Structure formats: structure tokens, C-alpha cells
């Protein structure tokens, strides 16, 4: 290739040296290295790439549809059939979600993707006392097959591919889906879709697990086994990098940890005596796509290359076994509360990156998701974003349009190199399960998140409308309101009815069979769950039958320190806050003490962990409360540790119910002197409601932490 190029070169055509000179002139004498850009992955990006770069890499051309699939898993890619538009949605009751799904399908959506509420994720029925604030909030409440049947009412499950984001309560939920289909007259062989079933990343970042790691891995194995035998069109695991990125990981970390998790599932199945070709073609992936445009395109290309190579060691006979197919979702973290219409633009750019990277299906976020749950209008715009890319912009006509680009191939290659290094490290630790147990992946992700937060807080990394180009009075945006207690009451009524009308002896027998199988390690838990669901056992009961044996797991929480303060570019600002805190400590006799807590079943703890480490770096004494607390538990611990402040982090819309309860309990315990502050995804129209309750400060996404720390100090001073 280079030969033919040099042949066509005329003697007068400029060389790279000529370019350097010209560039340096434009830079007023500075070297071109002064405009190199270092990505968060520590990959250095030059301003210009040439054929020379590809030569150095030893780049060889590949084709789409052939191993290692860097250019795409299918030969024709979108030119043959565009990516599947698959919007993730679910809220409130099964009835409401069902009508929302049917509207979207009529508007051009091709597949379904179900969001469950956090109670369901964690295996609790809606009547459980620990889920008062969670029912119907961040997804749909499903307690039994009756709910599942309503959810898919008039949606033919033999024709519709359904993706379900479920990792904790995978068994009862997959079972309820199978039985709901069965009662529609659809057999398991006909079902197509995906269950996330990726428990390892839950232990690392998302925290919606129920059981200890070993027991959880058994469940994953049982599901792979059952689906490979009975559900040939069904993806048994969706190995997810999305949540890893959302927690703050770099592209390299997302790649290595996700593929590492994938390897672990492959080994689990192989250790059970399955052959690679019997299940690997049904493993799918799920990546997040953020604002780092070129990097995200390269990431998807690198992922396909790496997976094809990783699978080689298992000697697959089928091409599809080594073929990485993926769903993508635009980043929720990149959405801002401030000037939220900007989010439409962000999502469009991210969607473009996902499609240029060759995703098989895509979810685009609604612009108001940093404020609350999407409305009908915002959901329509999100869907239209993809329709416009497909039908107006002409994106689908060409396969891997970046293929062969000097820059893109170089970037892809750098990512492959860096991710391989990290993957090797993981292998040395003994694989991802071991690595996750040690807590290192999570700590690395948290360090990356803290570093990034410091750069954003200082304005080094620009977020339009947040730390630059802010508007004074952006027009308010309407968000969807869920009457959480109405949903809960409706669910409780239905639960009562189901329990009254079933044969409870048979249900008990079926549940006992599950407990026994959990205890002695024999039998397939999915088979047994399907049987129990048929008899109208509930999601909570099936989960409890296993909890009885395995217990409910609490992942150890590790924290990091120093990263935030050391990454902050302006040490003067850090010192100022530290001095203020020192003054406070002198007067008060101790440092200001804050307990960072999350209530309810929401396990998204990036915000809480970043706040904890940054506040400690600034001089606060920080208590981290366990996850999944009730308001009573938070108050007990806050009193015991005698903190000045409780900081509530809320991402899943439970704040109105739970913070209200928290303040009531504080009153009851005669401890209203404890300041309450809140942060996370809280719609601005709820601010007054919370302030009236007595919440002192509310910090939306994008609040610089040093400023927040000062505000908290003032709030404490005002209370004393």
C-alpha cells in the first residue's frame, strides 16, 4: 500500500517534515507536540495521522463479517438492515408501561427493552417494608406472572425481541417472562431477546445483586444451561460495560473489565461441560457511549477484535462464537440538569458514535433524564434521533466508514494494546471473579471518577452550560411524576388477590424445591423457578427461598483518598477550603463530620463515593453508610456517629418519599440538629418541596465540590 502511494507522489508533494514546519509556524514557533491531546485513558492523540502511522502498526486490512470482526460482525452491516432501535423503558405499573410500549412500537421502535423498578431488581415484592420508596419508580414493578402478562398484553412475544435489564432477581423474572409467553401460546423455542444476567459488574459498580458471588455465578450458569438447551434464539448474558463507564471508568477500563467478565462467564459454562459453540453465539454485549466521540467509535471496533482473539483459546468451530454483537446506550452521566436541551445534542453525537462504531442495537436517552423520568415528548425526541440518523442522514449506507482511517485505526490499535495490558493483569490475579473480590477494579474506576470530577470542578474539562457558558434563567422543563404510593397500593392489592386464589400447598412445595436445589447444588434453578411461577409464586417468594440458604450479600465497600485533591489543578482553591475547615474544627472541637448515605434499593454509588472521597480530601470526617438503608437505619447510624450532616445521594427518584421519612424520623429521635443535604438526580421542581421539609442544600449534577463543601459548612454553622 505504501509503495503504491510513494509511486504516485510527485517530487514536489509535501512531506511530513514540511507539514511540521508549516504547523510550527501556525503555532507561532511552538512544537506540534504542544497541541497533542492526552485522553483520560492516557493515550496521546496527535493532530495529524498519516500512512506512516499505519505502516508502523503493521496494519492489515480486514473485512466486515469475517474474523476478527473489527469492521463489524455482519458483512453488510446497516446497508442490509439498519441497527435495531431499542428504547429502554418502564415505570409505574405494568398497565402504564404496556401502553407506553405499544405507543412506541406504533411510532417506529423495533424491539422492547424493559426497565424494572429497584424492588424487583433486588428480589423484593412491592409489599416489603424495605422498598417503600422504590416501587414503580425507576422502572416497572413486577411481583408475579400476572404483572408480566399485563406488561406484554397484545404484544406478540413470538415476534417481538425483548431485552430485560435484570441481574439480581434473574430467575423469577426470566421465569415469569417464559410463563407469560407460554400463557400467550408461545413456546420457549420461539422467544428471542436478552436478559442482562451480568452479575459480576453488579458487584463492581451497579450493586443490584442479591446473593454472594459464588451463588450468583451458579445462577448465571443455570441460565446459560437452560437457554442453550431450550431457547435457541435467546441471549443468555448481556455482558455490560455500560454501567462500568457510567461509574467513571475510562474506555480502557470499560473494555478490559467487560471482556474480562465475559471470559469468566465462558469459563463458568465450560466448567459445566458445555462446549463453546453451544452457548458463545448467544452471549451478547452492552456498551456505554459517552461524549469522547472518536474514542467511543474505536472502543467498539477494539472490543470486537479483542473478543474474537480471547475466544480463540477455546477452539470454537462456529464463526459466531467469536463474534461480538453489542447493544449500546448513550451515556446517562453525560446528561446535565443545567440547560437540559443541550442533552438532545449530546445524545445525537453519542448515537452517531455508536452507529459509526457498528452497534447492533441502540438506546438513546431522553434529554430530561438528568432531571427525572422521561415524558412522552422527550421519549419521542429520543426515538426520533435514531430515526433521523437512519432515514435522513444516510448513515446506514456504508459499512464501517472509518475503516482504514489513519487516525481511527491507530486509535483502535492503542486501545487494543492498553486493554490487553489490563486484561493480562486481571488474568494474573486469577480472573475477574478474583479481581472483583479484591476490590481493585472498583477502586480503579473510582479513582478515575474522582480524577475526572476534579478536572470538571476546576473547569479543565468543559461541560457546556455547567462549568462554562452557563445561562441564568433556563426555562423549566416538565418531568414525569410517579405517584409512588398509589403504584405500591395497587401492587399490594394484586399480590393479595394472587395469594388468595392459588394452591398454597403446591406453591410451598415448589419453593422448597428451590431452597433444596440452592442448598445441595443440584438441579437447574431456572427450571424450578419456572415451575414455581406457573403456580403463582411471587418474585419475592422465589428470591427469599434462595436467600434462606445463601443469605443476602453486602459487598465490602472500599474507599480511596487523595486522588481528588491531588488531581485538582488549582491547589490554592483546595487550600482555601481546607483552611476554612480547620477554622471550623478549631471552634467546634472537631472536624465537620458528614455521613454519606443512600436510601432504598438504588445501588448507583458513583455520586456518593466521589462526594465521600472529595469531602474527606477537603478535611471533612466522612462516614460512609451501608447501601440499601431505610431512613430509620440511616438516622440510627448518624446519631451513633454524632455527625453534623447527613448527605443523601439519590439517583432513582425515591427522594420525595424517603427524605420525607428521614426527616420525620430525625424529629422523632429528637435530632433535628443534624443538617440534611441532598444530591443527585432531583428535579428542580422538587427543590421547594424538599427545602420546606427542612433540607438545607440540594446539589444537582455538575455542582463543583469545593463550593458544595463550603455551603455545607455554612449550613452547619446556621444550625448551631
Amino acid at each position, binding site marked *: 500500500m505504501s509503495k503504491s502511494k510513494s509511486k504516485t507522489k510527485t517530487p514536489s508533494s509535501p512531506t511530513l517534515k514540511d507539514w511540521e514546519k508549516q504547523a510550527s509556524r501556525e503555532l507561532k514557533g511552538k512544537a506540534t507536540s504542544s497541541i497533542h491531546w492526552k485522553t483520560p485513558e492516557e493515550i496521546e492523540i496527535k493532530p495529524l495521522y498519516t500512512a506512516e502511522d499505519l505502516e508502523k502498526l503493521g496494519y492489515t486490512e480486514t473485512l466486515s463479517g469475517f474474523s476478527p470482526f473489527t469492521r463489524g460482525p455482519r458483512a453488510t452491516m446497516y446497508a442490509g438492515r439498519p441497527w435495531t432501535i431499542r428504547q429502554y423503558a418502564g415505570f409505574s405499573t405494568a398497565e402504564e408501561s404496556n401502553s407506553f410500549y405499544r405507543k412506541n412500537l406504533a411510532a417506529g421502535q423495533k424491539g422492547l427493552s424493559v426497565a424494572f423498578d429497584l424492588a424487583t431488581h433486588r428480589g423484593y415484592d412491592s409489599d416489603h417494608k424495605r422498598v417503600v420508596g422504590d416501587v414503580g419508580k425507576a422502572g416497572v414493578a413486577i411481583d408475579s406472572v400476572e404483572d408480566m402478562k399485563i406488561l406484554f398484553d397484545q404484544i406478540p412475544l413470538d415476534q417481538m425481541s425483548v431485552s430485560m435489564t435484570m441481574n439480581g432477581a434473574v430467575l423469577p423474572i426470566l421465569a415469569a417472562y417464559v410463563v407469560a409467553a407460554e400463557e400467550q401460546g408461545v413456546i420457549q423455542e420461539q422467544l428471542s431477546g436478552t436478559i442482562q444476567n451480568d452479575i459480576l459488574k453488579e458487584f463492581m459498580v451497579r450493586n443490584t445483586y442479591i446473593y454472594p458471588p459464588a451463588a450468583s455465578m451458579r445462577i448465571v450458569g443455570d441460565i446459560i444451561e437452560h437457554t442453550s438447551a431450550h431457547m435457541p434464539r435467546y441471549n443468555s448474558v448481556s455482558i455490560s460495560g455500560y454501567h462500568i463507564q457510567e461509574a467513571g471508568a475510562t474506555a480502557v477500563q470499560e473494555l478490559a473489565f467487560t471482556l474480562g467478565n465475559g471470559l469468566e462467564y465462558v469459563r463458568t459454562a465450560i466448567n459445566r461441560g458445555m462446549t463453546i459453540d453451544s452457548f458463545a453465539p448467544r452471549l451478547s454485549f452492552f456498551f456505554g457511549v459517552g461524549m469522547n466521540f472518536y474514542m467511543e467509535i474505536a472502543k467498539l471496533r477494539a472490543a470486537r477484535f479483542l473478543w474474537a482473539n480471547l475466544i480463540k483459546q477455546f477452539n470454537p468451530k462456529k464463526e459466531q462464537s467469536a463474534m461480538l454483537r453489542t447493544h449500546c446506550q448513550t451515556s446517562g452521566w453525560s446528561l446535565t440538569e443545567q440547560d437540559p436541551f443541550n442533552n438532545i445534542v449530546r445524545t445525537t453525537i453519542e448515537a452517531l458514535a455508536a452507529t459509526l462504531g457498528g452497534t447492533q442495537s441502540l438506546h438513546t436517552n431522553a434529554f430530561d433524564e438528568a432531571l427525572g423520568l422521561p415524558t412522552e415528548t422527550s421519549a419521542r425526541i429520543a426515538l426520533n434521533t435514531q430515526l433521523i440518523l437512519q432515514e435522513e442522514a444516510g448513515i446506514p449506507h456504508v459499512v464501517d466508514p472509518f475503516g482504514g482511517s489513519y487516525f481511527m485505526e491507530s486509535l483502535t490499535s492503542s486501545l487494543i494494546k492498553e486493554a490487553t495490558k489490563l486484561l493480562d493483569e486481571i488474568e494474573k490475579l486469577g480472573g475477574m471473579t478474583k479481581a472483583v473480590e479484591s476490590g481493585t477494579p472498583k477502586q480503579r474506576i473510582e479513582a478515575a471518577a474522582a480524577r475526572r470530577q476534579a478536572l470538571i470542578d476546576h473547569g479543565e474539562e468543559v461541560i457546556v452550560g455547567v462549568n462554562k457558558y452557563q445561562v441564568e434563567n433556563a426555562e423549566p422543563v416538565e418531568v414525569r411524576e410517579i405517584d409512588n404510593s398509589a403504584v405500591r397500593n395497587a401492587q399490594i392489592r394484586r399480590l393479595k388477590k394472587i395469594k388468595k386464589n392459588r394452591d398454597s400447598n403446591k406453591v410451598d412445595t415448589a419453593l422448597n424445591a428451590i431452597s433444596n436445589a440452592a442448598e445441595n447444588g443440584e438441579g437447574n434453578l431456572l427450571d424450578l423457578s419456572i415451575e414455581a411461577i406457573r403456580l403463582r409464586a411471587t418474585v419475592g417468594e422465589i428470591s427469599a427461598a434462595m436467600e434462606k440458604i445463601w443469605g443476602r450479600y453486602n459487598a465490602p465497600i472500599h474507599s480511596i483518598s487523595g486522588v481528588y485533591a491531588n488531581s485538582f489543578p488549582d491547589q490554592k482553591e483546595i487550600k482555601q477550603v*481546607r483552611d476554612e475547615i480547620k477554622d471550623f474544627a478549631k471552634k467546634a*472541637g472537631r*472536624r465537620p463530620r458528614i455521613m454519606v448515605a443512600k436510601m432504598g434499593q438504588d445501588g448507583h454509588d458513583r455520586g456518593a463515593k466521589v462526594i465521600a472521597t472529595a469531602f*474527606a480530601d477537603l478535611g471533612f470526617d466522612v*462516614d460512609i453508610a451501608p447501601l440499601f438503608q431505610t431512613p430509620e437505619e440511616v438516622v440510627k447510624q448518624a*446519631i*451513633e*456517629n454524632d455527625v453534623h450532616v447527613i448527605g443523601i445521594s439519590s439517583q432513582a427518584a425515591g427522594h420525595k418519599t424517603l427524605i420525607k421519612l428521614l426527616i420525620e424520623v430525625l424529629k422523632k*429521635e429528637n435530632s433535628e440538629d443534624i443538617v440534611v443535604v441532598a444530591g443527585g438526580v432531583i428535579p428542580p421542581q422538587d427543590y421547594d418541596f424538599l427545602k420546606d421539609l427542612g433540607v438545607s442544600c440540594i446539589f444537582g449534577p455538575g455542582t463543583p465540590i469545593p463550593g458544595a463543601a463550603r455551603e455545607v459548612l455554612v449550613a452547619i454553622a446556621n*444550625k448551631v
Partner: protein
Amino acid sequence: MVQNKLPSKADIIKGNRRAIAKAITLLESTRPESFEHGQVLLESLLPLAGKALRIGITGVPGVGKSTFIEAIGLFLIKQGHRVAVLAVDPSSQLTGGSIMGDKTRMNELAQHPDAFIRPSPSSGILGGVARKTRETMLICEAAGYDVVIVETVGVGQSETMVDSMVDLFLLLMLPNAGDELQGLKKGVLELADLVVVNKSDGKQESLAKTAQSEYSKALHLLPSSKNSWTPQILRCSALEKRGMDKIWEAAKSFRETLRNSGEWEKQRRKQTGKWMWSLVEEGLLLKFRNHPNLQKQISELEKAVESGNMLPTTAATKLLDSWQTHSK
């Protein structure tokens, strides 16, 4: 306002959580006025303290201390006891506050109404960790907690300090015998009244059994100078909450043995002596550091030593000399 009200003796005796917590804050306070209030309160509560079994727990990082405390704590509560857990962390950072995640690692125990867990921040304290822990322990005892567990973080100096305030010293060990004896600071094993091999579960159970017999041998080689009790080596799985009954049996028989021999009282009285001395040391250091006439010299000499212009011994002699002159 509510906050400014001092915790009352009556509330603490009643076991009011808020009052206990506020009293501990007073003891930890660097504000002379609050500290004074704390001492008065403590003095009034002293006659009610002293009835608990005080257990010190240590072990290398990763041995499962928190999981163990959760398991034994819940076991003891089931037996009708009330359990207080205090954490000692003598390591101190230069800047910044502490991050305390203790409760995340003892989730179930933290939620229990019969448990009181108080992690204490380490930074910014000038000595005094031992004093504060000891005094906090007494407050908890006066409030009716009859088992007080003091957890030390890390392995090193803190063990001796904790040993000087507890009745029973429990060393937690990993099931891989050889490596660990190497890693242990000399002397820690000699302090132990009970050695418990944790993680005796699943594949590690046989390893744990081997470790148990290895440790027994090693322990026999040590001179048992502490008291007439022969240290025991036990096994448990904190994760699966197994083996707690045997550990508790051993603890009770330890108490019995020492009470019968009269060593129980002797040990406690000896500890009171040490307490006095640690108060003297702390008081001296505080007075020294805060002495108005020394401030200038301290910072000058500190700089001189750090920049390598003066030997630390010379600087120390100078400071002590001026201290003597000024305090005459």
C-alpha cells in the same frame, strides 16, 4: 437549641443512643471547654463502669476483622448481651479528614438495636487515641453494654496499646499458616489470649485445620508470661457465622480462670496505672506543644531539622532545655 444541651448522666445510664454519642464527642473534643464537660461527666459515670468483658481484636488486613466482629456481635446479642464496638486507628494523615466505612462492613450488626458501633476519626489528633478509646469504653459500659469490642486497624504499635485496656486479646489469623507468622510483628502472638483461624470454610477448611495445628506448635514454643491462662487456638468461619459458640465458651472460661486466680483484678488494676501514665504523657505533650513561649522555637527548629541544617538530637535537647527553663 437541642444541640447545645449537654448529654445527661441519667440519659446515658438509660442507654439513650444520642446521649452516649454526644458524650463520646465531648471526650474526643479538642475544645478545652467541651473536653472539661466530658471529663466531669465521665467521672460521674465511673462507678457504673467496669462491668463489661473487654475484648481486643486484631489481625492483618484482609483477615476478616469486620466480618468476624459482625458474626460474634450478632451471636452475643442472640445470647442476650449488648455489644459496643470501637475502632482504634492510630495512623494519621497529614491533610484531610478520615473516611470511615466500618458500618458498611458490619451492616447487620450496625442495624441492631442492641449494638453500638462508633468509628472514630484518626486525623488531626495529637496522641490521645488510647485515652479516648478507654474513656469511650467506660461510657459504653455505664450505658449498659456488657461486651465491648475494641478493633485495631493494622498491625503494629496499636496492639500493645489495646492490650493495655482490654481483658482478653484475640488475634485473628488467616488459614495459610507459614506466610502469616512471617508477617506478624514480633510480640503480637505473645499478647494473644485466643488465636482464631478465620475463613475455615469451603476449600480453605483443610488449610485452616493445618494452620490450627501449626499455630499450636508455635505457641508452645513461646514463653507464656502473661498469666496462668494457656492461650487456645480455635477455628471459625465468620462468613458463614460458624464457630462463634466455641470462641465464646473459651472467652468465658478465660474469664473464669483469671477470676479464680485473682489475676483478673490484678490485670485491671495494672491497666489503671498505665492509664494514669498515658494521661501524664499526653498531658505533657499537649502542654509542651502548646506552650506559648515555645511556639516560635518549635517552628524554627522543626524547619532546621527538616532542611537538614540541624541534627534532631540537638534540636530536641534545645527544646527540652527551654521547656525546663520556661516551666520553672
